[in-house]
């Protein structure tokens, strides 16, 4: 039998191999102890890539199904996240699970189904970003500075709590990802950031991005617009009857 490549093993782990290709691998798995070790190694590499957020959307969903199924798996994932951080690959703030849709989070379906769908899709979309506010620091691909990602979920709007965020000193650009409610795919949004009643940043006609049932808008914000202090982040659905969502965040520099 031809030795399968690491890429083939990964496709098998992600349920992307057709049955006729998977069948001989299953047979080898039962007959060959060394092959089981190879598969274990391939799964470990997949786990590391999952923990580092290096998988695409389809891969993340399949990997989450495989790699978070049991308490033992979730312990392995925690350790992989720690290892990723130690080697400089992982988000600065991580959670293994995601929360719940709050009263302000309006998705169709039963609360249980809604919660699971929101949590699972967000898990798949963001790998392991934070529950309320995720901060993912990485080297920017476009310039010499560092880029961080802040994720604001629908259950963290004003009136609940002010989210505290530490922004690493080297950050030059902040990618702000904000969850929005289900709606027309053509809907456009405005996102603005204010501090003390003064507008520091605004972007208009932002298109919605989707990952499963997770819908969000994303903008790149200069870090200077989120200098230490309390900020109001407002997302407004543009149109004849605008609706808005507001978050309060307090930033400080690391």
């Amino acid at each position: 039998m031809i030795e399968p490549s690491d890429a083939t093993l990964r496709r098998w782990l992600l349920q992307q191999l057709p049955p006729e290709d998977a069948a001989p691998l299953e047979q080898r798995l039962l007959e060959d102890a060394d092959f089981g070790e190879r598969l274990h190694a391939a799964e470990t590499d997949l786990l590391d890539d999952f923990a580092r957020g290096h998988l695409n959307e389809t891969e993340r969903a399949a990997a989450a199904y495989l790699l978070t199924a049991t308490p033992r798996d979730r312990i392995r994932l925690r350790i992989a996240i720690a290892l990723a951080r130690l080697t400089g690959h992982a988000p600065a703030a991580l959670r293994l699970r995601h929360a719940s849709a709050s009263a302000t989070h309006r998705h169709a379906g039963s609360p249980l189904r809604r919660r699971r769908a929101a949590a699972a899709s967000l898990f798949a979309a963001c790998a392991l970003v934070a529950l309320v506010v995720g901060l993912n620091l990485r080297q920017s691909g476009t310039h010499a500075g560092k880029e961080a990602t802040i994720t604001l979920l629908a259950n963290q709007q004003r009136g609940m709590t002010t989210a505290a965020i530490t922004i690493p000193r080297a950050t030059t650009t902040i990618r702000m990802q904000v969850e929005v409610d289900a709606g027309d795919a053509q809907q456009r949004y405005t996102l603005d950031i204010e501090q003390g009643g003064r507008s520091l940043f605004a972007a208009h006609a932002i298109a919605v991005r989707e990952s499963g049932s997770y819908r969000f808008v994303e903008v790149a914000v200069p870090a200077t617009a989120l200098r230490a202090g309390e900020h109001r982040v407002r997302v407004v659905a543009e149109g004849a009857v605008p609706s808005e969502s507001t978050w309060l965040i307090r930033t400080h520099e690391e």
Partner: protein
Amino acid sequence: MTAGDGEANAADAPFDALLRRLRIDGTEGVAYEALRARLIRFFRMHVPAEADELADVALDRLARKIHQGTEVASVPLYALGIARMVLHETRARGARRRAAEVDPTMLADTEESRDGAETEAALSALSGCLDAAGSEARALMLAYYGADGAARIAMRQNLAGERGISLNALRNRALRLRESLEGCVRRRMGWTDPP
């Protein structure tokens, strides 16, 4: 060879019959655990939340078949056939729904609230365990598992070349180190494997 010939005893339990059959292939205890591990891997590919349980179901059926005198030319291949049937039955009765019920995203919020602190604690435990493993093991772990994508392959080829060993040997060494490291972190964190 069948379990129904001379060696078999009708009074034996099916499990004993299976162990006796496995003895042909090597030390029965080791062979049993190896077969179970392979079945767990098989089921993990399809229904990861139930892999252990389904592997035991398959082994029970295999043991009963052998105890009943069914001729089994190749235990692994016969076990694979049973495993595929168990998988088919499991899917048919809605295994996916049960898997969803133990979806980690469904766990209680009170548990979720501990995640951030536990991740930080795990990072600290990991650092301690890497230090305790010694400088060479630490360097190998961070190099082997530290690279991504194409750099990962190149890094591992370099590591194997530097040590004068094959990529397979390096992979096995890294896996053993990682398992040891994970065990160390689990102990430091007080994380015990579920029964």
